[in-house]
């Protein structure tokens, strides 16, 4: 019937990218660390580092989301577990519950190790509080595997949610496809392996962890290659796909931050560093540490550009284009072309 307008949004920006990044990273770190501890090598320190960091990450991410709510008190409506019965179709309902219960069960799983840890038990005030809950540690150990699996299930849900959230927005071709959850899951696990490698190299640094480090590096190389393949699929999809996807292509594939920052330094460079690490090896841990940092930065950049490059197609300009203070790169994003209808 009429010409169409193409524009991005200004509602969910960098802070949602951080939320999605920390959610995916934190969730995947819980899965990997508990799996490692239960089925590969018992490693209490890794559990402490991974699960406490994950708790902090999810708290920061959720706080960012909370601060950006328009009506803070009403958040109680999604914290209530009944939300899964009342609104099972909304991914935010599932995501909120997954995040809350992942945080709870991963901390319950970690608790016995927290009690044993000299660092925490000797800490003033915290140490004395922990002593009061010795019984809780015993109880947790009694059901440790079940609790571990409860944490894992909720953590997998959290990782999945970060991708499915974007998929539920039908007007944006870049987001509304099953490639997004897949990409975000692979990226989340890749960043989590990178984060745990950093922990193992920089903070725990034990000789006997060599086997875990090698396993993590190998898995990360595989994950980065899968991520590169998915990115190629997105390149094809955006370049030759629907009109709004093609507008996304002009935002992504002409952007040096995306090409050099994310694909170059966030994927290719760490891929080759880690590949050399698992094939011929490095004399010092420095290159792997560098690769892990790059993977983490890349993980954020992926979500950052994904949020900014989601292009909507509409029969009129977007609200932020005519709202005061709103801006739009008209020459880039707005086209009017005759279409039949």
């Amino acid at each position: 019937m009429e010409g169409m307008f193409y524009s991005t949004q200004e509602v969910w920006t960098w802070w949602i990218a951080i939320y999605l990044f920390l959610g995916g990273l934190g969730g995947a770190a819980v899965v990997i660390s508990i799996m490692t501890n239960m089925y590969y090598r018992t490693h209490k320190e890794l559990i402490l580092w991974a699960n406490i960091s994950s708790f902090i990450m999810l708290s920061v991410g959720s706080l960012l989301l909370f601060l950006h709510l328009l009506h803070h008190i009403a958040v109680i409506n999604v914290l209530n577990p009944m939300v899964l019965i009342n609104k099972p179709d909304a991914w935010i309902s599932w995501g909120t519950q997954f995040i809350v219960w992942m945080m709870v069960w991963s901390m319950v799983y970690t608790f016995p190790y927290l009690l044993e840890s000299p660092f925490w038990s000797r800490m003033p005030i915290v140490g004395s509080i922990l002593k009061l809950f010795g019984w809780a540690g015993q109880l947790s150990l009694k059901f440790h595997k079940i609790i571990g699996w409860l944490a894992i299930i909720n953590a997998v849900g959290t990782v999945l949610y970060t991708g499915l959230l974007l998929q539920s927005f039908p007007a944006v071709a870049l987001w509304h496809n099953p490639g997004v959850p897949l990409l975000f899951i692979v990226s989340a696990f890749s960043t989590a392996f990178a984060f745990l490698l950093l922990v193992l190299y920089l903070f725990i640094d034990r000789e006997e962890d060599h086997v875990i480090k090698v396993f993590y590096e190998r898995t990360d190389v595989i994950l980065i290659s899968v991520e590169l393949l998915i990115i190629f699929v997105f390149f094809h999809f955006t370049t030759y796909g629907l009109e709004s996807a093609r507008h996304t292509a002009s935002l992504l594939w002409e952007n040096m931050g995306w090409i050099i920052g994310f694909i170059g330094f966030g994927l290719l460079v760490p891929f080759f560093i880690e590949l050399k690490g698992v094939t011929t090896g490095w004399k010092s841990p420095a290159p792997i540490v560098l690769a892990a940092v790059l993977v983490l930065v890349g993980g954020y950049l992926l979500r950052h550009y994904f949020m900014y490059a989601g292009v909507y197609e509409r029969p009129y300009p977007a609200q932020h284009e005519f709202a005061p203070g709103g801006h739009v790169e008209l020459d880039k994003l707005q086209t009017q072309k005759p279409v039949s209808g």
Partner: protein
Amino acid sequence: MAAHYAMVIDLNTCVGCNACMAACAMENQTPVWANRWRTYVHDLEVTSGFLEDQIRRRFFPRLCNHCDNPPCMSVCPTGATHKLENGIVMVDDDLCMGCRACAMACPYDARFDVTYDDLKEGETFYGSLHFRTSPSVDKCSFCSHRVMRGLKPACVETCVGYSRMFGDLNDPADPVAKIVASGVAKPLMSHLGTRPNVFYISDLERAT
């Protein structure tokens, strides 16, 4: 059978007077000081598919389309966004936490913020009649409070060009139902599967 409300907008007769915007703003107390409206009339230049060198001026009113398959409702985690039996999609501002997932999901960009600051500003702007108490995401409600009393939405009531028509799709005798059934009025972006209940009569088809 319950009513199923819909709106037809004739782009040939909209004169761009913006009376509908003003009527809606007063009726629903939208934060006009921040240029946020439940309905907005765009002043656009468009070209015809057949006569590409001919540029036409188009006044294009936009509002919530009260979709029958509303993506804004399925993403809403609190249940604030819900659909009434009569087809009107509503936001319960007490339940809404303002996560804006609905605004992201709406293909028609029909939703906007009402913030804590807007509530304060509203007290000054709308004076003692101000009724908003909660910040939330807001959008057109087809003036459901008027429709329940047998009245038309404020924008329809005030439209000088008779561009906006409101009616019941379940009543075959209703002029709106007849126009929609005739196929002359079409929904926006129906390929998305949202099944909108706002239909537009094209000005270009009349022109060519």
